[in-house]
């Protein structure tokens, strides 16, 4: 992982540099002065197709009494959370070794997920959520800026997804924070609350890298998914 150091010289503005000593490129800005988050990112550390993995939960989750059933327990011969190609919600959507693309415009931000070919459109013009949103896989998102941080509030989830090994109800509420401290880095934080499942909100944090070699995410259509369980040892 690239480490950063700050060079302080008396009488000058500190300059962020990478470990290699080259100055970090500044955060690009949109016409309205806000950070322009647009770009293709993943959690790769150079080359390859990107690496997946969940972000560590920094605080919890702690299940309410009687909510143990929301903890996902997989049998040994399970093909895993991603094997059905269904959409992934909140931070889980960023836990796969695929790229995602942010497209920012003056009144909205779109996130295009390379896997499994889903997208979110996040209005940033101050409008509210629908009064009683229909449940969806990705939820209903609205965004606003707090300084240089894009804060995205999402409700209206169905109860078919899991996040960091926990299922949830339709009462799930996620607040995500996106920051681009320099051109090549996207910092992400997601706080989950569900009064039916969790004692208190819990947070995961991730850092993504800009894929300077990619201008867009690839098409992904899960057209040839098979029953992988048939390849387990016959009993």
């Amino acid at each position, binding site marked *: 992982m690239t480490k950063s150091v700050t060079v302080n010289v008396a009488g000058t503005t500190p300059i962020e540099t990478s470990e290699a000593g080259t100055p970090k490129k500044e955060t690009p800005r949109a016409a309205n002065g806000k950070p322009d988050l647009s770009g293709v990112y993943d959690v790769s550390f150079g080359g390859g*197709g990107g690496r997946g993995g969940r972000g560590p939960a920094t605080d919890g989750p702690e299940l309410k009494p009687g909510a143990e059933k929301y903890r996902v327990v997989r049998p040994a*011969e399970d093909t895993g959370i991603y094997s059905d190609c269904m959409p992934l919600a909140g931070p889980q959507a960023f836990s796969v070794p695929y790229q995602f693309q942010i497209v920012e415009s003056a009144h909205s931000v779109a996130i295009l997920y390379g896997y499994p070919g889903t997208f979110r459109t996040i209005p940033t013009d101050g409008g509210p959520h629908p009064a009683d949103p229909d449940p969806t896989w990705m939820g209903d998102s609205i965004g606003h800026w707090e300084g240089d941080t894009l804060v995205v509030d999402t409700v209206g989830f169905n109860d078919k997804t899991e996040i960091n090994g926990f299922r949830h109800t339709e009462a799930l509420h996620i607040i995500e924070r996106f920051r681009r401290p320099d051109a090549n880095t996207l910092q992400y934080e997601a706080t989950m609350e569900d009064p039916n499942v969790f004692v208190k909100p819990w947070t995961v944090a991730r850092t993504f890298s800009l894929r300077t070699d990619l201008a867009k995410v690839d098409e992904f259509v899960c057209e040839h*998914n098979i029953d992988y369980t048939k390849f387990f040892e016959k009993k």
Partner: protein
Amino acid sequence: MKLRLMALAIALGTMPLATPGFAHHSTAMYNMTNPVTVTGVVKRFEWVNPHAYIYLEVTDESGKKVEWQIEMMSLNHLKSYGWTHATVKPGDTISCTGGAAKSGDPAMLSSLVKLADGRTIKS
């Protein structure tokens, strides 16, 4: 059937293959710790997600032709390794190294492919 098919595969020893960040499904149904190599003629190459497939006609010791289903990574990974939809074509003789299905079916999750031109490429 399992034994006969395994007999034609060349065991590479006990060194496990490096499995890349494999997100789409668990690899537990494949024997990744004891990789094998199969050599045959490409019948079809499916450039599709969530995994590309090569269908390889392998001739066993008795002369019987068996079609192996060779699973590879998803297209974004393959592209990063240098693959395109034209990297292999029907009629090519290639070798695939990977973990065979624990079920004994002629199926494999391939990690390395030796192409018809002699190049070896991650898969």
